[in-house]
């Protein structure tokens, strides 16, 4: 862990060398979550309800999503660059070192600026839950703390699984973005807005419904208009360990599949 912290700290120092750029970067990151919230509010300027939910309910989902995703982006977002390392063969240098390859790749380009997004998301959850007038119980407090974290871990596994595709298909380009950034967009809104087949695929097939939608229903004490039992919201954190296991499997299979670039 101390090695990881050192590599990460070195990255922070390196970025800070370009001072003007670093400052603009920090500021941009400070507004990104506000933009997500702003988009939702703008939609509600035109309509009164989205998929049967009012603005306060939707904002709880958006807040959970807007914390979970940046958390994953902070921890493992840099794994997106794996494609480049596989293409150039740079992954070799990582593999010959006596440290876990996954661990090093994450530290190679750690970005401190992303911390601000997680902080913003957290503040936003507090605001959204206050506005939503939640009937607080100890269990709900625990869920409000656990849900964004397990949601973050769920997104982590998607980042890792998506990047692992590069081991087989180097030119996969942005395809992993459909899952990661696409998942962020998907989880911002109630799953009721999507058509049946799309919902089956994204919400239940991949499991995005358990990041924000079901935890939000449990927090708000609302029944699912789609008819799912109430305990589903409380069980949704369990999706994270399952996803982590599958992603770990994909990663390990992928890295065994890796044959250098030959250059």
């Amino acid at each position: 862990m101390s090695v990881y912290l050192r590599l990460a700290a070195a990255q922070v120092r390196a970025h800070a060398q370009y001072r003007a750029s670093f400052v603009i970067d920090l500021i941009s990151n400070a507004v990104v979550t506000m933009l997500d919230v702003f988009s939702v509010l703008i939609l509600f300027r035109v309509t009164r309800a989205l998929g049967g939910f009012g603005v306060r309910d939707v904002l709880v989902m958006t807040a959970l999503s807007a914390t979970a995703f940046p958390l994953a982006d902070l921890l493992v977002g840099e794994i997106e660059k794996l494609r480049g390392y596989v293409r150039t063969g740079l992954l070799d240098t990582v593999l010959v070192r006596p440290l876990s390859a996954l661990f090093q790749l994450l530290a190679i380009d750690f970005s401190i600026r992303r911390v601000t997004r997680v902080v913003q998301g957290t503040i936003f959850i507090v605001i959204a839950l206050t506005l939503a007038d939640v009937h607080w119980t100890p269990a709900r407090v625990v869920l409000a703390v656990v849900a964004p974290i397990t949601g973050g871990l769920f997104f982590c596994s998607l980042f890792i699984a998506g990047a692992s595709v590069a081991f087989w298909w180097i030119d996969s380009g942005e395809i992993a973005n459909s899952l990661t950034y696409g998942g962020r967009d998907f989880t911002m809104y109630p799953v009721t807005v999507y058509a049946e087949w799309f919902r089956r695929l994204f919400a239940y097939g991949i499991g995005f419904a358990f990041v924000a939608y079901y935890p939000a229903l449990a927090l708000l004490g609302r029944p699912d208009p789609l008819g799912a039992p109430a305990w589903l919201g409380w069980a949704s954190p369990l999706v994270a360990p399952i996803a982590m296991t599958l992603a770990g499997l994909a990663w390990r299979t992928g890295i065994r599949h890796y044959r250098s670039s030959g250059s």
Partner: protein
Amino acid sequence: MASGTATVDLGFGPSARTFAALARAGFRRYSTYRQAAFAAAFTNTTFGFLRCYVLLAVTGGGVAAGYDRAMMTSFVWLGQGMLGVVGLWGWTDLADRIRTGDVLADLLRPVAPVTNYLATDLGRAGFAMLARFVLPTVVGAVAFGLYAPRHLYTYPLFALSLLLAVVTCFACRYLINSAAYWLLDLRGVNILWILGSGLCCGLYFPLTFLPDWAFATIWLATPCPALFQAPLDVAVERGNPLLWIGGQLAWTAIMLLLAHVVQRRAERKLVIQGG
């Protein structure tokens, strides 16, 4: 340039043949990345579904902010196809060359750098029309049905509007990349552009969702609506197409001129990196 008089040398040299040759080279260069283009089109299509369902939930059965159901689906799906053609994000060629010092080679060429890169970019956009525009548009048409224009002239107007969007967007990207002459590291500026352009060009929601005064302000103060909202409004026949295209023409001229001016400034202060 110090005197402030901008003389724009388009650098066509002997003929437009150079320009056409550069554009063809750009087309060929990008057409080698076929798998990546397919992956990008696939991603655009996924986001098309995401955006379309949300925005259709907003329109419901009626009209929202000037768009009915068919207009909204066209707005989303043509927009997803246009993303790759206009090339809103992800172009850092010039900035990378400035950082490494390779830009020196561009300055030695007999063609002005802005013209050189514009020609290549038009070639890129041409390839993107085939590789990036078709898939989302067809999927959108099959899955949701697109808006059928009432006037025949909408088709050529949309083509013109799209071309202007490509050129304006190129000039915007050129300016942003040029910031590397002064900053070297462009992460910050890029993120600012990605966030600002996404919001102001109409990617997340049609700009008419905003209050009228905000819509007008964004149109007058930023080139962003000229990159996205304008061609889409022309395609779905919302408002007067000549007004949107007129606005685009103005922004194209302004941004190209700015790109030239900044390029001149940069050449005066340039310190070549590397060794």
